[in-house]
């Protein structure tokens, strides 16, 4: 084990979740679990057309209906254009959204809302609203959107931040390091592949939900299932035209987010109902609405071209991405940025790198942030191309990765050239245990014995595939999280953090970091998070930032508090402070003289020179150290039916110091499970008119317990010097792996390259048949 970790008392242990007891007993901890008297239920009328102008809207029958309190449309709501993307300010997403618009841009776009005494009344009232639409020509694919003379999705004058609205281009990126043309010309072997990914939804088991009410001081309280409480406060204030100080956002327990709750969708509407009626308002999306109207992953077409020398060293990398950002541009630029920035630095041996692409509007459901955030889409062609390259060069796939991946002490020009919608930040990798990950993963799956062997059992053929990955840990020099710690007279501490636990366990691991620095067990840290009135700022839970960025804030705040504790103790013990150490809930001299933390706080609070022991600190990072991982799968494919079974899935990951092993494993296992679903079964099927055909969990298949293959997760020993107690991120990286790993395993088994997800039995069988026909010469 790394020396720097050997004295940890709490960090590195699988402490129980600080919120676990309440969760296993089913306490009313989630947004909709509290009942407020007089709550209005809000339901939303949605556009049946992919592109249409509202000519007229008659809400009079709804307004007359007994039990209806308020009807909202474009006629009586603010017309301010904003972005729903919960990103740092100023957001790198266009301001192209109105709370209720006069133009509908996708099937499911918001026409009107009814607030009523019951959900049933609200639903009935929606049916009485008469809307006359003028249907407009719609663009239902990226190719249609980019065609000459294509209908324009956003032709309004008042939207801002769109790269080229007339051509449906939300964002355009073009960055170059070295000279790729020369790089390819000087390469011995070149491969090129284009891969396409599908519409997929996050499907948190708790759909989006927001509850608003007026506080006794008449301020608006938004209790909401969000990943970004502080961005909710800012964006709702802007959209409603009220001051930030008039809003308090409380994030209770959240039933999963995965990116879709990094979006301000419901809070403004609920808040407006409350401000107009002075009554609490609840909006709960149904599962169907969650699919149709919340957010999805960006479908992309990504082309990768690799050039290498005969010895296997990469010489040139080119990646071109076209991203479908749907009807609104939320996260359009930054997801596309990450397609390059989180993938290309992995192979930093190539001196010539070109990344370019576009994010385009269509009249289709709206993508946003989704775990992996563009990297998932980029790793598909990159890691498939690496597999093809290995075959062409006659070098083992594992070996080719080993030769070319980035290592500690190295950098990549991409770090500076490509940031989060702007230039990035220079960075030298300080921790990288990818070699170890590759070794462990290869050994666990039996790579050298089984790869390329095509073992047959009847109609089933076995295959092995692998891929390697990196992600980041927060957005450097943008993401900031803060922590406040105050001490109580029994030697316990309140830890107040803006950081947003959406089920990840961040309350617990941040508590562990504080406990470690303060020399107390975790139960002496009372964690309270994500309440804009009571906790300091944090950008929220996204970009794999919380452990690294917010964790640094917690560590710094705890260190400041520890200094104050030592100062008081030094005076009490009448010794020089340099001799004192804090551990086991006391402050001690080297010869064993000590005073308990409880006594120290009592002294500071009640006895002498009274003051509150406490501090606030911020985490703003100048790096974004990538976690690394190697992913391996053994599969079997039925050549008669196209059915694919994963026999074993092994991953080894370097996420720096593992603060809480069970929770970190849980993050990795969950990301892999979600990634396997995206690779094999999950797809939002769109109708020819742009609607979602399978907006339910029966027809949209996420993995259940019976679908999970054996999963072998190893977190390797690592230490990130810039991270809190050596930690970096673990949240997102795993989701990128299953697509390329399984694509490569399919090729190993049956010799066909699938380039469109999901890899359904139908596609596998069709590819097999095409191959047979081709080899027959027919």
């Amino acid at each position: 084990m790394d020396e720097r970790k050997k004295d940890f008392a709490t960090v590195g242990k699988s402490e129980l979740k600080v919120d676990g007891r309440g969760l296993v007993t089913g306490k009313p901890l989630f947004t909709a679990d509290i009942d407020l008297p007089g709550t209005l239920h809000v339901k939303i009328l949605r556009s049946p057309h992919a592109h249409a102008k509202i000519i007229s809207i008659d809400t009079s029958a709804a307004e007359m209906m007994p039990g209806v309190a308020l009807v909202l449309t474009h006629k009586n709501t603010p017309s301010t254009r904003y972005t729903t993307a919960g990103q740092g300010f100023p957001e790198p997403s266009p301001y192209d959204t109105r709370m209720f618009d006069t133009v509908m841009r996708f099937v499911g776009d918001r026409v009107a809302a009814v607030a009523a005494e019951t959900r049933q009344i609200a639903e009935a009232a929606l049916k009485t609203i008469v809307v006359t639409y003028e249907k407009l020509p719609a663009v239902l694919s990226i190719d249609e959107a980019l065609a000459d003379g294509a209908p324009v999705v956003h032709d309004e004058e008042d939207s801002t931040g769109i790269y080229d609205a007339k051509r449906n281009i939300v964002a355009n990126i073009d960055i170059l390091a070295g000279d790729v043309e020369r790089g390819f010309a000087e390469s011995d072997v070149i491969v090129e592949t284009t891969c396409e990914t599908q519409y997929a939804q996050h499907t948190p088991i708790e759909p989006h939900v927001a509850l608003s009410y007026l506080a006794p001081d008449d301020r608006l309280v938004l209790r909401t299932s969000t990943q970004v409480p502080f961005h909710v406060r800012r964006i709702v204030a802007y959209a409603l035209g009220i001051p930030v100080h008039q809003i308090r956002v409380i994030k209770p327990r959240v039933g999963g987010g995965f990116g879709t709750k990094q979006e301000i969708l419901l809070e403004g509407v609920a808040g407006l109902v409350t401000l107009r009626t002075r009554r609490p308002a609840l909006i709960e999306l149904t599962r169907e609405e969650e699919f149709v109207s919340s957010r999805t992953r960006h479908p992309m077409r990504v082309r990768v071209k690799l050039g290498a020398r005969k010895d296997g060293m990469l010489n040139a990398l080119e990646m071109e991405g076209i991203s479908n950002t749907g009807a609104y541009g939320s996260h359009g630029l930054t997801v596309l940025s990450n397609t390059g920035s989180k993938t290309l630095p992995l192979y930093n041996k190539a001196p010539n790198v070109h990344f370019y692409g576009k994010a385009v509007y269509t009249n289709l459901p709206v993508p946003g942030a989704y775990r992996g955030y563009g990297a998932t889409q980029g790793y598909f062609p990159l890691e498939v191309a690496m597999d093809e390259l290995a075959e062409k060069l006659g070098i083992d796939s594992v070996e080719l990765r080993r030769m070319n991946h980035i290592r500690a002490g190295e950098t990549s020009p991409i770090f500076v050239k490509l940031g989060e919608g702007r230039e990035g930040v220079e960075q030298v990798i300080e921790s990288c245990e990818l070699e170890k990950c590759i070794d462990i993963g290869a050994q666990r799956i039996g790579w050298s014995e089984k790869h390329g062997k095509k073992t047959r059992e009847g109609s089933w053929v076995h295959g092995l595939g692998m891929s390697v990955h990196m992600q980041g840990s927060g957005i450097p020099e943008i993401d900031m999280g803060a922590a406040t710690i105050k001490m109580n007279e029994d030697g316990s501490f309140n830890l107040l953090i803006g950081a947003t636990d959406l089920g990840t366990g961040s309350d617990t691991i941040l508590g562990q970091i504080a406990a470690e620095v303060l020399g107390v067990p975790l139960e002496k840290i009372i964690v309270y998070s994500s309440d804009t009135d009571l906790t300091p700022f944090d950008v929220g839970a996204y970009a794999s930032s919380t452990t690294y960025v917010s964790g640094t804030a917690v560590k710094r705040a705890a260190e400041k508090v520890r200094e104050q504790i030592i100062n008081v103790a030094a005076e009490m013990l009448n010794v020089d402070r340099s001799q004192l150490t804090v551990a086991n809930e006391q402050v001690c001299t080297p010869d064993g003289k000590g005073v308990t933390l409880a006594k120290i706080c009592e002294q500071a609070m009640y006895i002498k020179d009274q003051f509150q022991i406490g501090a606030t600190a911020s985490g703003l990072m100048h790096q974004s150290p990538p976690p690394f991982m190697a992913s391996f799968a053994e599969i079997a494919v039925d050549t008669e039916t196209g059915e694919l079974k994963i026999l074993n899935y092994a991953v080894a990951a370097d996420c720096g110091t593992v603060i809480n092993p069970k929770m970190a494993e849980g993050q990795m296992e969950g990301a892999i499970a979600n990634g396997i679903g995206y690779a094999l079964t999950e797809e939002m099927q769109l109708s020819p008119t742009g609607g979602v055909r399978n907006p339910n969990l029966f027809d949209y298949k996420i993995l259940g317990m019976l679908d999970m293959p054996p999963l072998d997760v190893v977190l390797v020993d690592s230490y990130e010097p810039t991270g809190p107690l050596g930690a970096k991120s673990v949240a997102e990286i795993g989701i990128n792996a299953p697509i390329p790993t399984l694509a490569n395993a399919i090729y190993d088994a049956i010799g066909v390259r699938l380039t469109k997800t999901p890899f359904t039995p139908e596609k596998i069988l069709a590819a097999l048949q095409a191959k047979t026909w081709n080899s027959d010469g027919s």
Partner: protein
Amino acid sequence: MIDITLTINGEKRQFAVNAGETLLELLRREGYKSVKKGCESGDCGACTVVLNGRAVTSCIVFAVKADGGTVLTAEGLETNGKLHPIQEAFLEEGAVQCGYCTPGMEMATYDLLSHNANPSVTEIKEALSGNLCRCTGYVKQVKAVKTAAKKLTKEAK
């Protein structure tokens, strides 16, 4: 409105319900908030309760159909502030991430273990196959059910 009687977590109670009201809606409006709404179509399992000894998705059971029945929810597992072995096992094995699917999984586990004290991994996966979780890869829930089985067997001795 129709009058029905239910014994919920050991307490006999009477309710007036609408014909179309689901058991999920009734339980949530009566304060049993462990029962979660995830899909309202019986697909996700978040609303699982034990009705007359068997796990059901309460979102597709009409409340009137449950008349006279016995319901157990996650609130009813804890006794005098002491966690039920199933709850302990879910907590200790790290089977809880966001916790939204947890009460439903616990109730499916309760049904399984009350009919099969020592289930195999396959039996566990079959029994909980209707309880979707998006945070985990189910690895730790399978372990939790195993651990719960051990705890309950030990307790019974």
